[in-house]
């Protein structure tokens, strides 16, 4: 109830539309998006139909969202996020393990394979995390989500949002291929997110 309300408000503010039906028929999936703003995960979360949204656990940075009791409540209670560490990573305490746990429980996850927000609105090279997850759960579809304009709504280094109309474009899902080299897979995933079109210089 509160979640659908927050999702509606998020859509209203950012101008992102709701998908008419869930990608992959609503089965669990690994969603991955380009990372440009603190609003990214809320937007993908809000764009999904109710059921798919209920089953989604977006990845959120522990050093930011775990800082106060309130942030923790918003991240874990409202968005049902998986908090992932960005520093002090050990064999037991690492983002992949925590996300894998959520996937084992049958939930969908949302990750940002670039690892960090970029300032210029372009899509950077993907880090290996998505490959680790895809290899461990080869049966799950990987759904690319291209986010546009969110870096203009709330750019890195600003706390003031500007009501620019954003877009979340859900692309055709891709599948893991056992025979494919890691770097090839990462490049393929990135290109799928861009809708098959490499960015040109005058964009951004």
């Amino acid at each position, binding site marked *: 109830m509160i979640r659908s309300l927050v999702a509606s408000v998020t859509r209203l503010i950012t*101008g992102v539309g709701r998908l008419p039906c869930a990608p992959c028929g609503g089965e669990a999936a690994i969603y991955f998006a380009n990372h440009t703003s603190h609003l990214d995960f809320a937007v993908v979360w809000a764009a999904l139909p109710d059921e798919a949204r209920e089953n989604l656990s977006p990845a959120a940075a522990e050093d930011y969202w775990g800082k106060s009791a309130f942030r923790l409540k918003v991240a874990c209670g409202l968005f049902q996020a998986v908090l992932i560490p960005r520093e002090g990573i050990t064999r037991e305490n690492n983002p992949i393990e925590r996300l894998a746990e959520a996937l084992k429980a049958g939930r969908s996850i949302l990750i940002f394979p670039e690892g960090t927000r970029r*300032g*210029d609105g372009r899509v950077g090279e993907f880090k290996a995390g998505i490959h680790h997850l895809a290899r461990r759960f080869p049966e799950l579809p990987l759904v690319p989500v291209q986010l546009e*304009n969110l870096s*203009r709504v709330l*750019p890195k280094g*600003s706390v*003031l949002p*500007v*009501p*620019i*109309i954003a877009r979340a474009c859900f692309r055709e899902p891709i599948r893991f291929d056992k025979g494919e080299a890691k770097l090839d897979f990462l490049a393929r995933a990135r290109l799928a997110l861009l809708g098959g079109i490499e960015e040109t210089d005058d964009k951004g």
Partner: protein
Amino acid sequence: MDQDLKILFGVVGSILVVASIIGVVMKMRVRSEAGRATVANLNARTRSWWVMAGVFCATMVLGHLFTTVLFGLLSFLALREFITLNRTERADHEVLFWAFFVFTPLHYVLVGIEWYGMFSVFIPVYAFVFIPFRRVLTGETKGFLESTAKIQWALMVCVYAVSHMPMLLTLPLRDFEGQNAKLLFFFVMTVQMSDVLQYVWGKTCGKRPVAPRVSPHKTWEGTVGGIGTTVVLSTCLWWATPFNPWQGALMALLICVAGFFGGLVLSAIKRDLGAKDWGNSIAGHGGFMDRIDSLCFAAPLFFHVTGFYFGTGIDPRPPGWVLEWLGR
């Protein structure tokens, strides 16, 4: 409620009823694939017209304050579409925050408290000066003039120009006190009728494009036919305005021509930015900006021409409570 206003609402209602019936009939009779798409778009437009006309008429009944809020909201949404489509840089972010959340609301507060003197200079002077001041603080020099000019234009077109419509309600006119709602109605009705009739004439017998690169669907036949019909129909509404029939015809012509060029100018900007529509908020029409593009440039012109010739002089002084607060 003003008796004349009731008649005007009745006219709009009847036009929409007729349009809806025509839409139903055409839907049953159309055969070809392309024709079906056109009729579907036409019916979507008519449905949106019902909503827009309903909201507009309701706020007119509710008075100056509600009309101001409605147009304020419209300005905000138009500004949002304008800025979204224009590429703005990281260095523009703070200036944009001011434009959206300070200048736009404050300007409409001035409309609400009917302080004409400040209303007329707030954006052209204060905002105009402040925008480059704030932008220069970021230290970014790349594209400085383009960026500031874009934001200044956005405020002038989407906020300043649009706000002349609610301000029309406060324009003092000879022998027309308390009836300005009808003037606003005459203006909006003329512009929108001209848009619709140009579309209808263009669709039915349009051949030679006026400006193929700017707006491929605008044709000479559509423009001349649409404007001609609108002037005739709007002149028939002279009894609801401070104009006599001749003056009404000339005013309608002024509105139509300014509306036509306004639409063309905003279309040129849109094409340059590589888009077909400003947005997708209104079914069948595109964005808010697509619907109000012809109002933008016509509104301040109509306001000032009417005020110049039929007005009794606008009082630019601040409202009494502001003077009191200043201790004067």
